[in-house]
């Protein structure tokens, strides 16, 4: 089974199993990594914002316009920012590294 690494807000690296076909958001939830995902992956918020390690960002499918629209609203955006719900695990992504941003904005909580 592929594996991936989350770098948490305090810098801790969490190396976890990453089942094929699950999104980075779903993998985070499966392992108790603190990513919110307020809209449960329906592209209606930016609370699953992650920063992809630059070594991996070119290997991902390009973000759709809808994903870019949601990223517009994310806090702490960086060049390789993506939404965790839109990255789906494949064999090619075995070893993927993403970092959690310092803050998120949940528009649902106002």
């Amino acid at each position: 089974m592929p594996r991936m690494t989350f770098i948490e807000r305090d810098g801790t690296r969490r190396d976890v199993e990453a089942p094929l076909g699950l999104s980075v958001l779903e993998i985070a939830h499966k392992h108790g990594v603190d990513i919110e995902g307020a809209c449960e992956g329906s592209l209606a918020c930016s609370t699953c914002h992650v920063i992809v390690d630059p070594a991996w960002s070119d290997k991902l499918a390009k973000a759709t316009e809808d994903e870019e629209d949601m990223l517009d609203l994310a806090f702490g955006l960086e060049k390789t920012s993506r939404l965790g719900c839109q990255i789906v695990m494949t064999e090619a992504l075995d070893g993927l590294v993403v970092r959690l941003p310092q803050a998120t904005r949940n528009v649902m909580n106002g």
Partner: protein
Amino acid sequence: MPLRPNRPVYLDNQATTPCDPRVLQAMLPWFCEQFANPHSVEHAMGRQAGAAVEQAREQLAALIGAEPRELVFTSGATESNNIAIKGAACYAAAVGETRRRVVTVATEHKCVLESVADLRAEGFEPVMLPVRPDGLLDPAVLAEALEVPTLLVSVMAVNNETGVVQDLAGLAAVARHAGALFHTDAAQGVGKVPLDVAAMDIDLTSISGHKIYGPKGVGALYVRRRPRVRLAPLFSGGGQERGLRSGTLPVPLIVGLGEAARLAQAEMAAEAPRLAALRDRLLERLQAMVPGLVVNGSRTARIAGNLNVTFPTATAAALMAAVPELCVSTGSACSSAELEPSYVLRALGLSDGAAGRTLRIGIGRFTSPADIEFAATALAAAHSRIEA
């Protein structure tokens, strides 16, 4: 001396234009009857106001070849220019972008020059390029400046004093080739010359309502989505307008801007030759009566309604004092309170003396042939009196 008009003749349409009565009619219901907050999506009145805002967004988008959701409403072109320039720089700094150069042109509006200059304190490198004597930016001069990796290039579509039209498509291509963002302050260009932000490959465009027969206090910023252009907002707030411009939207003003855009799109093709004919008539009459009159800026790359002329002897101030029934100006309204000669004219190579003998004449939608006749006769008569 020509017959005195019973109200002042207004030939300063680059300072501002009168609100078109059709624009005012479109705005009126949105003050007292349909006053709801367009962000109140929970009730019918709010949703109606929201729909009116979105219709205006579509009308303005159609005028410049944008998608409606690429437009952010603002208070006017000054705010749009500030958001575009400072917002692009702040965002770039936040994501660790290393490009630090920001390039603009000596003849830009003050708010662009000042926004770019303000970035120096944030660690950016402002560069101000000269123009040719005809007022146009040489693409080779831009290309040379962009040999240093550049974050943003800002070049106005149409100059507010000379009416000179820059080759935006050509300049944007130079910026794209160098990997820089391209912003244009199109306050004087929208609705006057055809603009297509997609075809011209422009990333950011500032728009003003009151230069196109709409109300004062409203404008817009085009922010490209494909490829995505990101800006850091200057205002904190409720996240309206894609988070870029928080604050309750002024529905009546936005409806007016939309209607003004619709009228401009429908009438621009017929209006431009009509204004050009009036402008050419005025110039012909002035040249016949005032030998030595000089036109500043390109005669061909120029909007139809603008004339910028240097008189041989009389100062602009003396001419305006001698013809109080005529509303013209010495330079941009924003800078004319200063006694300093126009920096735009000096950038074209005019001496301080020549700049001081120069009038900006702006012909608009409501200018009549009689207005032109009065202006020509009165200015020529005043010039002879002052000369004598």
